[in-house]
């Protein structure tokens, strides 16, 4: 096994066979037992049939990315074997439902599970789970109880599923193949957990929770993969947390509703993907012009157009960065982990309120859907939004927005004096809420006066443009600088952004372990960029390579635009699958082989 403390388990089959529920059941069970778990799902854009798979990477260490090599493959159908056996580790094993035909070299490594004897076809997923539990060395019947608990809303199924798990585990414990050959997949004991039990959470769930913790109260959405589960999580918590979540007639309505809600004082968020976001771009410009706080989550998937709805890509960075007509400042966060999804979404919410404009959280299908065991967030001390009363003291990020503006807006002498868009040194004007008092709150998508009324006065125009753009200063003062990892003066610096963080960290570890001084520079905020926060790292490295989940190297281009520094070497993936550690290592290996080859020629 390549890494003795880590196991990678993959369940494959057709959509509708219950892979997801079985996989998540096992994953949650393992988390409860104290393991670190990372769950990634791969599915097609259809409801039943078509090949789906779910991978559980289990370890005692914190995990940051999925792994390609498979230690234990649960094959619910023949196709699973055809598609995944190539990734089997040298000592990897297959648990196959029924008796699929097998190539010779796999026979000895496969355990055929007699489904009909152990509960029958509709329970295949649970039967294989039971066998797997046995192979992994899990305590008998604990998983069965977990299954029963998880399915408590459907008591009949719960009963059957638990029975199947139990029977399968019992059967498996009797099999020579399990007793003798499966040692290699047996799990070590889970690590001690701290005071709080770990929980299993996806990037999208963390975004929703981050938003709630920051005080988001309103969300409007039109369903779109892979953003839907942000909205869905908000729906499921709406009653308990006091949110309004409304399905809109289209994405244009969604963003305009959110802007209306935010204007009226309910902090608001929208979450969508490429095509839906395209329809929101006019609204983005509206939020900027009316200086309405708004958080926009864009979960990327491969485009153009409908593209590959259930796959991943990082190809909308430039689009998000320039979306909306006219010029206005914005911030774009690109979290690289489930935890960062929570914290950066919080930050986005606060920053939207502070800067009174649109702030983006840019993720992708991989990060959105992958579940990982994490320490529960400490939610007690986190500051939250209060529209109209400024961002609370001590709220991070702090900075010039809350400082007394160089030229403070003139004090109001009478209610009629309130000016929503009053000029100020920071570009941010005092905010009141409509109906919150005698002041009238007026704003306009046309160019407007300080009082918010439409104007064609070209001097006011010039001042208003400058006012809005002044906010960029405040945004720049509170950027999240890129994370530095590994060697400070490396032979090779890996540069990435967003969801590829985990794979890049692991690749860095591997390269360093192999004796190659390697560093990583990871952007969790892709706009604004402050060259001072990373230019030295670029120049300290002997070689730099930009790793991106797109075909044109968008971050590399942006870095050149902002610093003049060109990152010539690129490692790009755009087939819809996430960049993994092994993908990076392979690509670097191939590159080295190539450059070796060219060196050999004259």
């Amino acid at each position, binding site marked *: 096994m390549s890494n003795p403390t880590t196991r990678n388990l993959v369940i494959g089959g057709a959509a509708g066979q219950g892979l997801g529920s079985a996989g998540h059941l096992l994953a949650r069970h393992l988390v409860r037992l104290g393991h670190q778990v990372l769950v990634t799902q791969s599915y097609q854009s259809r409801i039943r049939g078509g090949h789906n798979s779910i991978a559980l990477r289990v370890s005692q260490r914190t995990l940051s990315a999925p792994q390609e090599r498979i230690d234990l493959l649960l094959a619910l159908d023949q196709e699973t074997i055809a598609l995944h056996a190539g990734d089997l580790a040298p000592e990897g094993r297959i648990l196959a439902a029924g008796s699929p035909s097998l190539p010779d070299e796999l026979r000895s490594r496969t355990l055929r599970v007699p489904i009909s004897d152990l509960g029958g076809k509709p329970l295949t997923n649970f039967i294989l789970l039971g066998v797997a539990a046995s192979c992994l060395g899990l305590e008998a019947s604990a998983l069965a109880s977990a299954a029963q608990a998880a399915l408590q809303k459907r008591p009949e199924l719960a009963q059957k599923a638990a029975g199947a798990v139990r029977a399968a585990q019992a059967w498996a414990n009797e099999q020579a193949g399990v007793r003798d050959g499966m040692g290699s997949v047996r799990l070590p004991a889970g690590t001690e957990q701290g005071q709080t039990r770990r*929980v299993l959470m996806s990037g999208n769930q963390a975004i929703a929770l981050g938003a*709630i913790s920051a005080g988001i109260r309103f969300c409007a959405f039109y369903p779109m993969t892979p953003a839907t589960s942000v909205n869905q999580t908000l729906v499921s918590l709406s*009653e308990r947390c006091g949110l309004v979540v409304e399905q809109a007639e289209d994405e244009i309505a969604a963003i305009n509703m959110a802007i209306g809600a935010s204007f*009226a004082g*309910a902090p608001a968020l929208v979450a969508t993907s490429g095509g839906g976001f395209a329809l929101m771009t006019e609204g983005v410009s509206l939020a900027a012009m009316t200086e309405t706080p708004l958080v926009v989550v864009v979960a990327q998937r491969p485009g153009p157009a409908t593209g590959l709805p259930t796959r991943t890509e990082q190809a909308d960075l430039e689009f998000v960065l320039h979306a909306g007509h006219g010029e206005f400042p914005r911030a774009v966060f690109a979290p690289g982990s489930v935890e960062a999804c929570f914290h950066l979404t919080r930050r986005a919410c606060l920053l939207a309120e502070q800067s009174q404009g649109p702030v983006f959280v840019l993720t992708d299908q991989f990060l959105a859907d992958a579940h990982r065991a994490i320490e529960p967030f400490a939610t007690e001390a986190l500051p939250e939004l209060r529209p109209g009363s400024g961002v609370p003291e001590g709220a991070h990020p702090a900075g010039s927005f809350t400082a007394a503006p160089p030229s403070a807006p003139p004090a109001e002498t009478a209610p009629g004096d309130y000016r929503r868009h009053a000029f100020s040194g920071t570009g941010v004007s005092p905010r009141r809420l*409509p109906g919150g008092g005698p002041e009238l709150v007026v*704003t306009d998508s046309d160019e407007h006066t300080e009082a918010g009324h439409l104007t064609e006065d070209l001097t006011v125009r010039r001042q208003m443009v400058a006012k809005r753009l002044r906010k960029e200063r405040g945004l720049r003062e509170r950027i999240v600088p890129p994370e530095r990892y590994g060697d400070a003066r490396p032979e090779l610096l890996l540069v990435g952004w967003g969801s590829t963080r985990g794979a890049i960290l692991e690749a860095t570890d591997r390269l360093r372990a192999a004796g190659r001084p390697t560093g990583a520079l990871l952007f969790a905020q892709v706009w604004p960029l402050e060259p001072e926060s990373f230019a030295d790292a670029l120049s300290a490295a002997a070689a730099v390579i930009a790793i991106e989940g797109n075909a044109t190297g968008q971050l590399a281009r942006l870095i050149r635009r902002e610093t003049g520094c060109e990152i010539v070497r690129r490692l790009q993936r755009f087939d819809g699958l996430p960049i993994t550690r092994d993908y990076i290592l392979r690509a670097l290996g191939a590159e080295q082989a190539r450059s070796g080859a060219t060196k050999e020629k004259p």
Partner: protein
Amino acid sequence: MNASGDRRDPEVRLEDFGDFETAWCPGCGNFGILAAVKRALVELQIAPHQLLFVSGIGQAAKSPHYLRANLFNGLHGRALPVATGAKLANPELVVLVQSGDGCSYGEGGNHFLAAIRRNIDLTLLAHDNRVYGLTKGQASPTSPRQMQTKAQPGGPTSEAFDPLAVAVTMHASFVARGFAGRQAHLAGLIAAAVRHRGFALVDILQPCVSYNRIHTHRWYEERCYELDGSHDPTDRDAARARIESNQERIPLGILYRNERPVLRERFPALQSGPLVGRSVDRAALAEIVAGF
């Protein structure tokens, strides 16, 4: 509506809404509508700060700049969603949407359907001049086939949209028609629409002296009549019959009305009041996180 319930403010007078210079052509129907809106607000005794106007882009959409109130003047065609979001955030605001026929039924057509279906509790004042005024005279959704324009020299390529017929068919909860030339009557309709609980549409016939040579002030005066007690606005078939009768007799008044749940009742979170000003329940949140 809301806010009119617990009134602590001194009497609201016409002057409270101010008097502004406009960017409209002399003789434009928008003047009459603006005056009627102010009269209705005085009748309702709603103070400027209790109101939120939302408008789109067009000549009509400039209207709320010419009175004192809270205002979100948004994008062309998108006033209804903004208003919906604002009303859900703070149901205590009295929300009125003011926009043109192009804004409301053209670019905003999908939101018009959705607002009816949601029964969001607000009033839509559609200034229906049957033309795109601000962009200089193209056909609007309500332009009739015989109206020749620069952009449609042979007349519009589409049949005219009848917002009232569609609204009644969709069981919109309040459907009325007013005329910019009958200010007092129109003011009464607007007041009734604001008082109504649910989505209230007032389609307002508005002469455009610059681009609509057919539907002049006079043309309307000759054809409009006010509905009286003989019309039962709860009778959907009767409403349809009035709306769909020939164009030589145009009914003004409340054509149709029903009572049904308004949007905010569908949200448990709104049972305890507006979203505005709440704080996060940290204990619940910690429990939720632990439960993942």
